[in-house]
């Protein structure tokens, strides 16, 4: 039982961080970013290169990843999303653009980093073992703590800085924010860069545990979508809640339903659909996203 709770917490902290970036971009620009998972993968590969290949300290690698992904995100927003959003009749059209970017990142990652699964040496050795009731390797504890710290840092940034306030105002009501003098273009770019950075950071953190490979992008995006839906699209607290709930669902589901094997995930997905039919806006979302 204790193990299940710890598993849920660990998974939840990763998931919440992935979902945060996605929901931020959605809240600001109404873009469902299909390339989110690819940014996660890119982050993993950048960390792998800086830490695993070039031998810099892990923390430097994480910072490098954050900066790289922020730049990538900003460029994508500036050169691709901005012109398309400005000119398209229906804003869903950006989904095609996002999917195109996802394909492009897939192709670039394949050409630059290759097709193999990549991993880095463990950052911490040893396993925390409490009487076989809780078994958790130290590196997982560290990654979990780092993830929670990043989430806390992100929330503090959104709450207490001028940029954060502007972003929140922008997310709440685009027109009103614009009228109050918020520079929409600038903050779209900052928001997109932040979202990409968060995705990259999780990728960088997790490369120490699960490694990274080209194929993780699409599935990660879809998982992130699900978390965002559970919590409510475009709501920061919702994304965090969604991440932890999906983490808990998986941990509990796998523990309780393991003897039924194949249908564990079927039940998780089906219950998600049932939940959404009763609560169409997720836990905390605005109705009709």
């Amino acid at each position, binding site marked *: 039982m204790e193990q299940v709770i710890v598993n849920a917490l660990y998974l939840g902290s990763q998931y919440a961080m992935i979902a945060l970036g996605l929901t931020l971009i959605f809240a600001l620009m109404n873009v469902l970013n299909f390339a989110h998972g690819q940014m996660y993968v890119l982050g993993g590969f950048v960390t792998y290169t800086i830490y695993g290949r070039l031998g810099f300290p892990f923390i430097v690698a994480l910072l490098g990843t954050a900066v790289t992904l922020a730049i990538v995100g900003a460029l994508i927003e500036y050169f691709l999303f901005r012109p398309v959003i400005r000119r398209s009749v229906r804003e869903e059209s950006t989904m095609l653009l996002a999917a195109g970017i996802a394909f492009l990142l897939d192709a670039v990652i394949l050409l630059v980093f290759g097709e193999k699964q990549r991993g880095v040496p463990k950052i911490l050795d040893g396993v925390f073992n409490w009487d076989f009731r809780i078994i958790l390797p130290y590196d997982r504890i560290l990654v979990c703590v780092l993830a929670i710290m990043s989430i806390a840092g992100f929330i503090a940034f959104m709450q207490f800085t001028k940029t954060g306030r502007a972003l929140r105002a922008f997310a709440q009501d685009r027109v009103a924010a614009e009228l109050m003098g918020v520079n929409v273009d600038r903050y779209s770019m900052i928001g997109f860069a932040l979202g990409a950075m968060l995705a990259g950071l999780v990728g960088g953190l997790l490369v120490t*545990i699960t490694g990274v490979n080209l194929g993780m992008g699409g599935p990660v995006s879809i998982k992130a979508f699900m978390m965002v839906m559970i919590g409510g699209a475009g709501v920061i607290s919702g994304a965090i809640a969604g991440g932890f709930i999906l983490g808990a669902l998986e941990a509990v589901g796998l523990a309780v339903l393991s003897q039924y094997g194949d249908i564990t995930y079927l039940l998780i997905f089906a219950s998600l659909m049932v939940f959404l039919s009763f609560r169409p806006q997720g836990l905390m979302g605005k109705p009709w996203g």
Partner: protein
Amino acid sequence: MHRKALLKAVSIVAILACSALISSTGFAANKVLKIGFVGVTSGPAAAWGISNVRSMQTRAKWINETGGVKIGDTTYDVEIVTFDDQKDPKRAIAGMEKMAQEGIHYVVGPNVDDGAAAVRPVAERNGIIYFPYAFPKELYTKPASNAVLGMVASYQSGPAIYKYLKETKGVKSIAFVSANESDPLSQREGGIAAAKALGLDVVSSNVTFQVDTIDFTPVLTPVMRTKPDLLVLSGVSPANAPQLIRSARELGFQGLISTETAQDATVLKEGAGDLANGFISVGGASTPEISSDMMAEFVDRYTKMFGEYNDESNTKVYALEYILETLKVNPAAITDVEEFKKTMDTFEVANPYMKGDAKLKYVGTTSFGQKRQLMVPLVVNVYKDGKFETLFVAEVD
């Protein structure tokens, strides 16, 4: 600004397209023999096809540099025509049609069950012999006759491994874990049947995971409670293997771990480090104990050409070799696959990749009732400190 950006994008694309075209056109003094490849070389499952296609390209380039291959009275340069099916059976059909269009009669791939089943009608109608890396028996038993299994099937290697471990390591109980996808699940079924036939106690057999799992601890926790002597990772992809091994060991698992798929030593080293020591997998003939000088040169050329070797390619050097050697024996088969099928029954030459007197021949009579499988040596490897060591070598009949 906007237009400038577009212009830039267009010019980049154009440059890339040109460079791609230039690199694909070589010099051709000899006649060209085209061999096809239909499989996945982009997207999530890219690793499977890429190690495959690269080993073919390496071998083809090597042959061409040394003057080509002499079949009958003509010397040919080998050209590999690749089609990326993105692991989609619908595209795999299109790929096979493309091969037929190019006049190709010998195609390596597809890499997965659904693709291999989907291309069957096209291959049979157009007289194409194809070499899938997929295990469904329907593909190789009559009335099907155009598919030749390119590797050792899990239902062949599994029993051999379990038997060996039962006899030498005293394994009594066994547990299976697999991804909830078609190929791994089918391989798990085969594994369970084999284990039961050997009288092993199957303590856990229905735990599955999604391929996108990022933490395997919750997946493996219930399996570990059953305390098996041997944990089998059925049909595990090289990407998931190190994570599963790491989670199992970190949960305190002391028993053996094995799989029936080919793995890559570097991936295991990076992903699981010392925890992967003792991990048993199936490989080709690349361990120093058994590999010939030719295999060493192949690895060397592969590494030069693509920067890094992939151990999965060990099992995948064979298909092209088999095609060419069989054509050498019967040149009429270049355009007529019926001739090829006739030759398959009697074909036997020395295996250039292995030391000793190993042979290349077609097998599969026991499993499929006809010779529709390449005799690839069943080399069972164990991982140790970043390298594979050969545990034992067996043959399939």
